[in-house]
């Protein structure tokens, strides 16, 4: 085992001319982050010790949050520094090539798909919008909009308790169905409005409460690829939704700008089989 053995960790590719990487801290401590340019594309890389990142070493580390979390943050931090590039395509965590010559080969060999991926995100950045729903507020809204809702308050005492119970059950069920419909419609509407102000849009499964630390469930977990020139418009759309849906119990959270992680869904290198 030579602990000298090193490989090239690739954070992503950018249009040439990316700068500001000089003092960025990479995934492996002090190793400087640099670019490797070939075929008109710049790969953002830093050296990593194989002892730590090699195929046999990495499996267990992934399960160790104390190893993983800071490196995931470092991966993103480096790419954030490169957001000033004309175009930036982030690579998945732990994309590692044997060395600089292989990085150059890779850039040359996949010049075309890389160019396509770069063109797709050129001049754009990713924004995240999440919506959370306070059911108690939505229920008021739905009740107010449902005629039977008013009757529900007065009509309890009439028949026997059994009948009243059944009636109540039925009303509860109807209310739940109305709630589901209202939630789905509102969520879809919000996503469509945001997507209309973006170049591309996609949704991911809502994060569980464990991950958000919030009482209200997440109902929308959207990612939007927005032209930098259109960011004001996009922010305006989000503002208007927040206003429009506040009284229905929706709150919104915005994150970004991100490298276009959600819009780099390309796999290269499988044709050789």
């Amino acid at each position: 085992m030579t602990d000298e053995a090193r490989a090239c960790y690739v954070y992503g590719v950018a249009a040439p001319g990316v700068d500001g990487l000089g003092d960025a801290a990479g995934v492996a401590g002090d190793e400087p982050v640099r670019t490797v340019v070939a075929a008109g594309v710049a790969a953002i890389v830093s050296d990593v010790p194989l002892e730590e990142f090699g195929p046999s070493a990495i499996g267990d580390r992934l399960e160790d949050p104390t190893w993983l979390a800071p490196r995931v943050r470092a991966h993103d931090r480096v790419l954030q520094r490169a957001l000033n590039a004309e175009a930036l395509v982030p690579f998945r965590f732990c994309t590692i090539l044997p060395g600089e010559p292989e990085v150059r080969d890779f850039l040359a060999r996949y010049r075309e798909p890389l160019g396509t991926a770069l063109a797709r995100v050129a001049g754009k950045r990713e924004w995240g919008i999440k919506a959370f729903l306070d059911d108690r507020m939505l229920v008021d809204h739905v009740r107010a909009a449902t005629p039977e809702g008013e009757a529900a308050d007065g009509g309890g005492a009439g028949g026997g308790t059994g009948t009243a119970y059944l009636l109540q059950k039925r009303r509860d069920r109807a209310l739940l169905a109305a709630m589901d419909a209202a939630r789905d419609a509102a969520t879809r509407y919000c996503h469509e409005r945001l997507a209309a102000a973006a170049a591309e849009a996609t949704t991911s499964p809502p994060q569980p409460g464990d991950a958000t630390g919030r009482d209200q469930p997440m109902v929308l977990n959207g990612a939007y690829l927005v032209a930098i020139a259109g960011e004001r418009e996009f922010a305006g759309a989000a503002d208007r939704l927040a206003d429009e849906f506040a009284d229905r119990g929706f709150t919104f959270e915005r994150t970004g700008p991100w490298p276009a992680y959600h819009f780099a869904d390309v796999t290269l290198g499988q044709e050789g089989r």
Partner: protein
Amino acid sequence: MSDPIRVPDHAAAPARYREGPASLADLLDRVLDKGLVIAGDISIALLDVEVITIKVRLLIASADKAEELGIDWWRNDPHLSSEARETQDRNRELQRRVEELEARLGGSDGGPAEEQTGEAEDNSG
């Protein structure tokens, strides 16, 4: 017609929606799950996507729990000059959180998870 719209400036996070630092869950979702992939015959350490996603799902919960509890090891920035005070603060905070959590758990038997993942598979080669 145009009211002032704020864009990427984080200066005055306004009323209508929150803008915070990205959560660890946001980061893991993106960095581990998204992004361009180079297949295994080129890349030397391509991660098995399926495996990693499952692991990460488990991890998100535990990692953010840890963050919630103040065990923010990944934020160990080198500005921890006054370590003693910090530790003291942290202990106090931890104690408060623990009490809070205990109160919240209340009657439910929230034992520390029966995650007996079962047979220890030995896949040594």
